[in-house]
Structure formats: C-alpha cells, structure tokens
C-alpha cells in the first residue's frame, strides 16, 4: 500500500450530501478484474449529464483533495470507489461524516479520509470557490489541515495512522499472529458448518 504522510494540493468542492458509491463509480465499471484504471468511471454520470458539475470545471480539474457534504461513500461496499478516486488523482477526501465501509476501504488503499465539522467543510468550500488555486495541506503526521491562515486539527486513530504513515498492509501484520489463529481454531465447536463438501439438498 502507498504510504500517506502529508499532501498539498487544491480542493474540488463537492456540494452534495449522501454521495453513494454508485455515484462515485457505477456498476458497469465494476466488471473489470484489475485494481487500477477506474478513472473513466469516476462520477461518470454527473460528469456526462451535468455541465456544471464541479469536476467538469477546468479550474478544479487538477484538484487532489475532494471536500464533500455529509455521509460520503454510502451504499455498496465496492472498493472500486476508492480506487476510482485515487486513479482520478485524489489523495484525500474530507467530509463531516463517512459511511463505515468506504472509510475502512480507503485506509486499505492509501486514500486519506478526514472528518471535519460541517462548518469547516463549508469554510473549505468557500475558500476553494473564491480561489480554486488555494493550496491546502493535509498533514497526517501532525493531524492538521492548513490553508491560508487557517489551521484545523483532525482526529485519526493511532493505529490506522501508523499503518498509513508506514504504508503497511494488514495481511502481513496479521500473519505475525497465526499461532493465535490456530489456537482459536482448535477451540471452535465441531458442529459449525463447512461449505465443503457440497451436501445434497
């Protein structure tokens, strides 16, 4: 996984709430079996049907920090939503509330999700709308978002932060504890179901 330490870039202000993962990337783009190359599906319906959509505006085309309304990433568990955002050039998403699975997926793929109060989200929207070239720094080491004279702290749980800073993948970390897993398996009741072999209906 890519490490995330600090990132500086410009903001795309997405003034929408409850952006579900079907909007981030629709199902027809999920047929691929690769882990990259999903940028063409990113927000494709809005990019196609709404000329005023924020990512259609040239001044936001290079943005790498997406600032969205509350409840970003609801719906389907598709990790493709995280991959599409990354493939589309985003390193950070800021919102006042994320859906759990999206947030979890983002931490596995090196996309940083930052929770800020709605008032701070509005301030970022205003700043990016007033001047789309506003440079915003998201520093995971210091847990700070800074732009202009504004500095806003954010929370990040220590463990996830450590994993992101180091770019560590979970499977490797868990493999250190396989003896515990084996011991647990020894205690499981024998009647628990097994999928193999297939049994007659």
């Amino acid at each position: 996984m890519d490490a995330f330490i600090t990132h500086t870039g410009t903001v795309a202000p997405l003034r929408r709430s409850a952006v579900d993962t079907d909007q981030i990337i629709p199902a027809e783009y999920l047929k691929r079996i690769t882990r990259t190359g999903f940028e063409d599906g990113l927000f494709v319906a809005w990019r196609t049907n709404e000329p005023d959509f924020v990512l259609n505006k040239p001044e936001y085309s290079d943005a790498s920090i997406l600032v969205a309304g509350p409840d970003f990433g609801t719906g389907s568990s598709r990790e493709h939503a995280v991959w599409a955002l990354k493939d589309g050039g985003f390193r950070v998403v800021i919102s006042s509330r994320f859906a759990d699975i999206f947030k979890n997926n983002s931490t596995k793929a090196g996309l940083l999700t930052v929770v800020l109060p709605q008032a701070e989200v509005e301030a970022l929207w205003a700043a990016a709308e007033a001047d789309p070239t506003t440079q915003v720094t998201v520093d995971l080491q210091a847990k700070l978002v800074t732009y202009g004279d504004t500095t806003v702290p954010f929370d990040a749980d220590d463990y996830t932060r450590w994993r992101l800073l180091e770019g560590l993948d979970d499977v490797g970390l868990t493999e250190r504890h396989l003896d515990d897993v084996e011991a647990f398996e020894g205690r499981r009741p024998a009647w628990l179901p097994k999928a193999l072999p297939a049994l007659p209906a």
Partner: protein
Amino acid sequence: MPKTLAEKVYEAHVVRSTAGEPDLLYIDLHLVHEVTSPQAFDGLRVAGRTVRRPDLTMATEDHNVPTLDILAPIADPISRAQVEALRKNAAEFGIRLAPMGDRDQGIVHVIGPQLGLTQPGMTIVCGDSHTSTHGAFGALAFGIGTSEVEHVLATQTLPQYAPKQMSVTVDGELAPGVSAKDIILAVIAQIGTNGAAGHVIEYRGSAIEALSMEARMTICNMSIEAGAKAGLIAPDRTTFDFLQGRPHAPQGADWDAAVEYWSTLRTDEGAVFDAEVVLDAATLTPFVTWGTNPGQGLPISERVPDPAQIADEGERRAAEQALAYMGLTPGTPLTEIEVDTVFLGSCTNGRIEDLRVAADLLRGKRIDPSTRMLVVPGSVGVKSQAEAEGLDQVFIDAGAEWRGAGCSMCLGMNPDQLKPGERSASTSNRNFQGRQGKGGRTHLVSPSVAAATALTGRLTAPADLIGA
C-alpha cells in the same frame, strides 16, 4: 456485565485483543461473488499466499448473470471474463463454487441461509454490503471491501474495532398489506441514510418476533441503507425451525448442542445500547421512496415533498437534486406516479415468501398493459420451489416475465436495465441515481405494493385494490 447479542457474538470471535490495536476477529463463513473478489485473489497470487480455510468459503455467480438463456455463454465479454475469473480462482484455490446452472446458484445472501450455512452466533462476511441480511439468524454479518476479502481469504480473520450498539424496537401488530419492507423503509426514513453509522442494529420487539425468517432477512438486509455495520435479530424457535433439516445445519446430537448454544444468544436484561429507536407497528402503512436514497421515503398515501418547506439547507438541496433526477413535482400524490417497470426480486425481496405474496395479488388478474413486470427469483432453489407451487404460471398468466435467478435489475450489471428516464417500482434496496440503468428512476416498495402497482401501472397500496 449485561451484554447485547451483538457483543456476545463479537466477543466469542476475538482471537486476539491488545490495547491500541484493533481486535483480530475470527470469521466463520466467507461468501464470495465475482465482482469484488478478482483483485483479492490476484493479491494472494502476487504474495504467494493460499486460502487459509477453503472449507469456510463459498462462492457463487450472481451480479453479472443473465436471467434469460442462462446456459448460453454470457454475451457481454467483460461480464463473461469476470465470471470466468471466479471459476478459475475457485478451482485454483479449492473453493466451492455454485456456477450458473448449478442447483445451489443464486444471490449470495439468498443461498447462504437456503443451504443452512448461515447459522446463529456466527461471524459472516462477504465483499458485499448486504451481508447484513444474514443477521436475521442472530449472526454478526457485515460487508467488506476487496482488500478485506483478501485478508479473510489469507487469514480467516479481520482486524476490527467493537461496533457501537443500537436497538430498534418495533412493538405491536402490522396491518394487513403492511410488511417487513415497510418497517425497514420507515426506520431508514426516520434515522437517515447513514444514521446508524458505526453501529450494529438489533431489531427487537413483538412485531419483529412475529416475523418469518424471510421477513427478518428483508429487515436486516437493509440495515446498511441506514449506514449500520450490521443488523441482527435474536434467534428463536422460528429461526431453529427454518434451519432444521437444511443441508449444512447440524444434525442429531450436534443439533441439540447447537440449539442449546443458540438459545443463549439473547441480549441480557439491562444491557446498554448507545442509541435506541422505537416504532409502533400498528401505525405503519405501506412505504415508498420518492428520492434517490433509501432514507427519502414516505407512506404511500402522502405527496411528493416540497423542498421549499425543508429548513435544513443541506437537506433541501438534497431533496431538490433528488426531485430533479426523479422528474417529480412537489405536491403530487405518490399514488399518481406512473411506472414503466415493476421489478420483483433481489436479496431484499427475492425469496419464496415474497413471490407468494405477490402471486396472491396477481392470481387470475392481468397487469397493466403498459407496464412491464420482471420476476427474478433470488436463487435456483427459490425458482424451483416457486415452480413446484405453480407461482411461475401465476406470474406468466398475469403478463409478467418469469426469469432465471440472480441480482438482475437490482443493479443492472446484466442486460436487465431501465432505459434513461424510465421509472420502476422495485422490491430491491437502493434507489440511487442510475442504479437500475443509466438515467433510470427507482421507487423502492414491498412485494405486495409491487404487485398492486403492476396491476394499476401507478404506485398502489394493496388495500386500494379492493373494489378496483
């Protein structure tokens, strides 16, 4: 200390717990489908890893499968490649697969319970948000992303933090024609589309206890539409009766041992929930959605809301965007909304009981001539059962299309899609923009509202059919 059901199941699966780190949770059953797994299997191959417990893993083909000509190769080459990747991965890693044409094939959340693989007290995951369905059995079941699918394949565990606890209590009796779908749509309308974020919901109360397993699955299925990590219901006699005799249910002395354990899976008196929601079943009526997320719903007797009356700016903007997409005018009675298509199916309402309810309303009648109705059983098992009961003929005689099993128009990854601007009444779980096809407009409904709507061509409550 008194504990909730979800806490009991969670704690029974903690492999390892260390301060400052997530717990390592053991996974009893890992369900796999073709869309969210290929990159996970690739990850295993790249790292030279194997599947730790193929015997606790089960795969099926559901999202991409056509519902016509299911024995012919899939026409769409990209869909076909994805299904073929699953077949190759299942063979290479020694995983049981129910492919198209197999008697066990179907939507992943329909086949788990049908085979008896879903049992009380288990931890169940799948790279699919509607894994919450399995919570109907008192299992802790939740959706995961592809990186986590890879993690479970490799280790049969997941790093987790204990979720918060929410109770949704529904007491009282449902009126005729009001169903589990209406309960859950009402709950989501009340708490919002991400209102249960970070929580596991336990559904309790006399109205929940009175529900069949199929109806309980409908409710738990849509927990994710309220943003919940999972939804569950304490197992009881209804649960045990459903399970007994299923292929993978315990037998003989094992059955007795299992039932003894399952009977302990109840929330203790005095256990504390972080949030509580209470609903009176007697006040519920059929619910439909008018907007583009499952929280934007109302009783069918209401009118399309007027965004101008919504005080909160964010919500007003969301309502305006939703109505613009849905092509609806504020103040229109919901029952005047005409639909092009009725979709009966999905992991929410594609089980045998759902088909029976709809068939009862359609028996001996014809659907509205300008409306198309697609009936898609949730699994081959459901399809065979329905055919044994003659339900297929009821649907066909009414003018509906009787299809093969799969996800179908729930998300339109196969050819079953709405055309731009077309409107559906759908028994599925998501009315997101474009979910059922580009530009398609979805109203979520129960199976009986779906059937009543098919008869009239506009959103209709079953009670309003009488005398019609």
